[in-house]
């Protein structure tokens, strides 16, 4: 497949790589260890117009496309998967639904500051009893005197402690199941909206993941996104795009794990020669490289399909399913081929292996991706 990677893509990719090497790589291990959100780097990314890559310039974006955005996440994730997911959750989940479903007023007020990076975005669907099964949402939104009153809890929300603007999904009509879900734009400082404690995770530790708590949180009626009852459609449409971002994150992790292994096995000597001279290892590396390349093709294809304005649910699901699975597999192999050193935090493969796992879980588990893929094939 011809991905038609243009000169401008190439140049942007160079900027992302340069930024990742100089700003992200030096702090990646430390922010993982200290679970520290990289505020300074997010500001620097905003200055270089990296926080609204696929959105039109009239809404504060860079005026580029999904493929370019994928390059950014891939390059950042090679150095630190947390930077990758912050950018992905902000762009695909926080800003994109406003771009796709928002009114001109909402775009002016909320998309612009998100796309310029003045503000950070987040998205909340998951609840203690509703993740994959969205109909189980218990958070409610009741319209009264020109305001929606929100009550309920959201959990595992990426960027929660750092975001300024949230896309919240709540039930406006419980009797209609998923058709009773609506989406809202909620500002972080709205009274009645508070944050729970930061989750202590296995990986992507610098990402700020928290519970959101709504207690009689009143928001203006005009902050309804789309129409009442459209929430499920908005959430699913948004997650389709988000999956491309997570697939790109997984790809970055996998590529880095491969690169580290290629380097290490040529340096590490056992039995009087570099371990890369052993055919058993060569075959492992060949398999890893082939899988990474296959994932890259799926991820870029999903991005191109979206950029061409075609339906891309299946492509995004395939990319996310495959790239996340091989990210875990390749990172796991990378640790194995590093031997004892791979288990030590001084080597990046240890972090890569922990960070890879979440890509199989969030924004739709592997099992959900398979449901989406099968659903698009079977009637």
């Amino acid at each position, binding site marked *: 497949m011809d991905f038609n990677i*243009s*000169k*401008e893509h190439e*140049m*942007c990719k160079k*900027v992302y790589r*340069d*930024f990742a090497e100089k700003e992200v790589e030096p702090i990646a291990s430390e922010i993982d260890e200290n679970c520290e959100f990289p505020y300074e780097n997010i500001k*620097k990314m905003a*200055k*270089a*117009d*990296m926080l609204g*890559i696929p959105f039109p*310039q009239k809404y504060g*974006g*860079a*005026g*580029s496309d999904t493929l*370019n955005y994928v390059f*950014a996440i891939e390059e950042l994730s090679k150095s630190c998967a947390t930077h990758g997911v912050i950018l992905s959750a902000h762009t695909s989940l926080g800003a994109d639904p406003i771009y796709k479903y928002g009114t001109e007023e909402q775009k002016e007020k909320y998309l612009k500051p998100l796309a310029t990076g003045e503000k950070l975005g987040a998205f909340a669907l998951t609840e203690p009893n509703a993740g994959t099964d969205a109909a189980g949402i218990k958070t409610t939104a009741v319209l009264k005197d020109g305001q929606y009153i929100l009550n309920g809890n959201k959990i595992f929300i990426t960027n929660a402690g750092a975001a300024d603007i949230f896309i919240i999904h709540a039930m406006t009509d419980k009797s209609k199941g998923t058709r009773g879900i609506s989406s809202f734009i909620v500002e972080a400082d709205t009274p009645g909206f508070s944050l729970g404690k930061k989750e202590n995770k296995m990986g992507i530790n610098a990402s700020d993941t928290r519970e959101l708590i709504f207690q009689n949180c009143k928001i203006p009626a005009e902050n309804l996104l789309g129409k009442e009852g459209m929430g499920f459609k908005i959430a699913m449409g948004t997650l389709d795009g988000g999956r491309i971002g997570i697939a790109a994150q997984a790809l970055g992790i996998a590529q880095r794990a491969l690169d580290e292994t290629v380097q290490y096995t040529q340096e590490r000597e056992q039995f009087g020669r570099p371990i890369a001279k052993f055919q058993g290892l060569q075959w492992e590396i060949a398999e890893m490289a082939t899988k990474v390349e296959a994932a890259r093709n799926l991820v870029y294809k999903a991005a191109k399909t979206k950029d061409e304005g075609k339906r891309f649910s299946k492509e995004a699901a395939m990319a996310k399913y495959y790239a996340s699975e091989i990210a875990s597999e390749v990172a796991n192999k990378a640790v194995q081929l590093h031997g004892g050193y791979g288990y030590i935090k001084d080597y990046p493969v240890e972090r890569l292996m922990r960070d890879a796992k979440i890509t199989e879980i969030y924004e739709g588990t592997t099992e959900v991706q398979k449901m989406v893929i099968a659903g698009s094939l079977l009637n």
Partner: protein
Amino acid sequence: MKIVVCVKQVPDTNEVKIDEKKGTLIREGVPSIINPEDKIAIEEAVRLKEEFGGEVTVISMGPPQAKDALVEAYAMGADKAILLSDKAFAGSDTWATAYTLSQAIKETGQFDLIFCGRQAIDGDTAQVGPQVAENLSIPQITYVKGVDIEDDEIIAKRQLEDGYSVIKTKLPALLTVIDGLNEPRYPSIKRIIDAYNKEDTIQTWTVEDFEVDKDKLGLDASPTQVYDTFVPTRDHEPEILEGDVEEKVEKLIKKLKEEKVV
């Protein structure tokens, strides 16, 4: 304030290899970058524009692929970028390069400041900046590590080996800048997209587009003669002296005496 910046696209010498037989650089597969000190020049110009208003024009002389360097300069905040590209310019040494750049600068009209990097990492001559200043008959301050503007004067810190001097001069002037003056920003993704999609962001000028004396261009007009280039060879193995400081000094003096250095 109208500012002109002269930049050069160079091979990334961190990744360059040398053809030992010919004594030349192997350019194939080596990434091209904006000369690092020229990037500092662009950054300083853009900062001054942000502070005082005005316009930054970046000029480079080079083959068509040097356009990439100008795209990057534009994405860092330059308003205009001009590539001087013509077969007539090929093979220019610093004298011919400085003449060509000076003529192009004249063509762009009035200017208050010209920034150049101190020297390019591929040639290390540090001649083009000063030559441009001479061609344009304006004051020059080289090795600049600090810039202040007061009314129509510039006050620059000029780095010396053991300190710095502070030099004041009237504008217009030319400054060559060194590492440490600032930290160049990352190019804006939005401006990269603009550079490729908006018209006239990067202009290309041939010999027909500005006033030049064709006898002063390119290889034939270059007085520099290269007799030989070679890769320095190492005929001594390095030796590390062991012991505490006093022992090491003693050993060093003994060595120096043996070699008849002292």
